[in-house]
């Protein structure tokens, strides 16, 4: 296992290198002089020279890239030009929200996607199957942000004053807040990596509320997460449902399933104990691949639900030409995507003992 893991991690290095290179190269092909783009049109040549010297823009491109790689490995993503504070700090504030939505949406889409896929496969060519697959086709064709807006309209306006009302925006109801973990556990002195981890954990409101036992905040935060997660999760749900159905149908046609039925197993055991185990591999692959869509979806939906995550920050950074923020967020999200797919690869081993390490 450890050997396989090491081999996989080594294979990952060129990809990670490539990701950082692409984002680095993107920043270098900014149209026009970066100096004027950043300092403004009115910058004098002297100011520009000073700026280049300070930012190391006069060095050879490879030296600049090397420095950039070194900075990233130390968790230094440069400074936001607009907010003039470290990008890492902004990331620690924003990323938890996006990951909460992404993971919530993933939970939603896998649970219901697999369930619907199984039902469709088992009741093949019935009204349930046709309906589910029709729904799945419509699901993959919907714009995420539109679904978000429609859900907000239905649950916040049409169902107003019913028990089904769900808040359409924000992270917590007004008046509610949760103290940072550093304050709760007297960890203010922590800095560096541990400090960053504590800040990250404490900004993950659901996690913070859960471990400090603040169930009022937890309930409220989860309540606010419902609509974004459903909106973001619908497209992957449709994809997962379709994949589950076709994968399960393929397996159900095999001889060993007939044997399992012939020896008198109840249908539920045939499906869950025998068929699903073999059908799971492509499903898990597609779950890993749709994680990228989930991350992009979360970024898009945040603007709809006014959530303080990566997406809202990214869009405002683009308009203020705050490129270090755009660059950092792109790298980090791509890395998260790559690592999720690594986990998917590793999970094959547990799903299929025939895959040797």
């Amino acid at each position, binding site marked *: 296992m450890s050997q396989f893991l090491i081999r996989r991690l080594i294979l990952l290095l*060129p*990809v990670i290198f*490539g*990701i950082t*290179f*692409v*984002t680095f190269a*993107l*920043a270098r*092909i*900014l*149209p026009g002089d970066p100096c004027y783009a950043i300092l403004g049109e009115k910058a004098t040549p002297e100011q520009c020279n000073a700026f280049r010297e300070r930012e190391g823009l006069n060095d050879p491109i490879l030296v600049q890239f090397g420095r950039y790689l070194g900075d990233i490995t130390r968790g230094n993503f440069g400074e936001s030009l607009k907010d003039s504070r470290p990008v890492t700090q902004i990331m620690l504030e924003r990323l938890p929200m996006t990951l909460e939505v992404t993971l919530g949406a993933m939970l939603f889409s896998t649970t219901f996607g697999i369930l619907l896929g199984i039902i469709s496969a088992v009741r093949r060519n019935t009204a349930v199957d046709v309906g589910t697959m029709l729904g799945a*086709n*419509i699901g*993959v*064709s*919907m*714009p*995420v*942000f*539109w*679904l978000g*807006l*429609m859900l*907000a*309209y239905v649950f*916040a*306006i049409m169902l107003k004053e019913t028990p089904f009302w769900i808040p359409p925006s924000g992270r917590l109801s007004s008046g509610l807040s949760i103290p940072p973990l550093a304050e709760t556990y007297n960890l203010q002195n922590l800095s560096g990596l541990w400090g960053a981890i504590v800040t990250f954990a404490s900004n993950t409101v659901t996690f913070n509320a859960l471990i400090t036992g603040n169930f009022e905040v937890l309930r409220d935060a989860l309540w606010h997460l419902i609509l974004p997660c459903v909106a973001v999760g619908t497209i992957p749900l449709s994809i997962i449902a379709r994949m589950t159905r076709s994968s399960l149908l393929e397996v159900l046609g095999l001889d060993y399933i007939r044997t399992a039925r012939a020896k008198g197993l109840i249908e539920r055991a045939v499906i869950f104990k025998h068929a699903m185990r073999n059908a799971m591999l492509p499903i898990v692959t597609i779950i890993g691949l749709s994680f*990228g*869509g989930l*991350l*992009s979806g979360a*970024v*898009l939906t945040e*603007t*709809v639900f006014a959530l303080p995550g990566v997406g809202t920050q*990214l*869009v405002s*950074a*683009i*308009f203020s030409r705050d*490129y270090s923020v*755009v*660059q950092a967020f*792109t790298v980090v*999200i*791509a890395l998260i*995507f*790559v690592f999720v797919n690594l986990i998917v690869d590793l999970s094959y081993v547990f799903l299929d003992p025939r895959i040797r390490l």
Partner: protein
Amino acid sequence: MASSATSLQLEPLNTIVSRTPLQNALRRFVRHRSAQVGMAILGFLVFVAIFAPLLAPHDPIKPIRTVKRRSPPCIHLLGCPADQPQHFFGIDGNQRDLLSRIIFGSRLSLEIGVATVTFAIVIGTVLGAVSGYAGGWIDNIIMRLMDVLLAFPSLLLSIAIVAVLGPGLINALLAIAFVSIPVYARIIRASVLQVKEQDFVSASRALGSSPIGILISHVLPNAVTPLIVQATLGIASAILDAAALSFLGLGAAPPTPEWGLMLGEERNSVFNAPHLVFIPGIAIMLTVLGFNLIGDGLRDALDPRLVNVS
């Protein structure tokens, strides 16, 4: 046995139908249920796009001074008072007829889908062909670069590219096209590798065909099946991604009648004028659905592996 032999003799010869594989595929496609629905949607859309100036009751850009901003749809048949002007989809935030904007938007959506995918296929074909023919380190560099592009969540990479190029419809389309190049490059490369060493290609080369000639007459026909399927599904996702970028304000600029932009502009009026959000979304969804259904149908019709199954 004897009776079947006699019946064979009795049957006129011309009832034996012989079909080429292409005709077979076409038959399967035309009979495919979801392909039929997809073709109907696409046909309607193309019709609307072509005759947009004739179908649209108003100008898509110019405001109508006499109507109230964001007024809901008014359809006489459904009980809207006859003395009020008829607007099937209502009025948007700038006093424009939403129906006219949706109609003109269909042109833009089709253009966006076809343009980005064409661009991506052309570049992808060049890269894939070079990669497959050259082999060695050139192949390695190109394909690893493609792998890296695939390692990004695609919409996010488009957003980053637009951040560099600056917001705007053309830049958004370039970004979306760029991000989808790897898929096509891989298809073409696989096809080149498959064909490259075969005898008929060597013969063709010995007869003096240029690499480009071989690409056109041998490689592309071999790759056309996966390419068509991928392109159709690619158009669907390009339309979705372009709408997303426009929604964020990174794509088309006002007053362009782009569906994603229309949604983005009116997102805050979802609570008091929901039709302004609902209708453009439905338009995007139907268009994307149409292409997705056709893509599914094409895959089922063209994939030789599925022929024996069905």
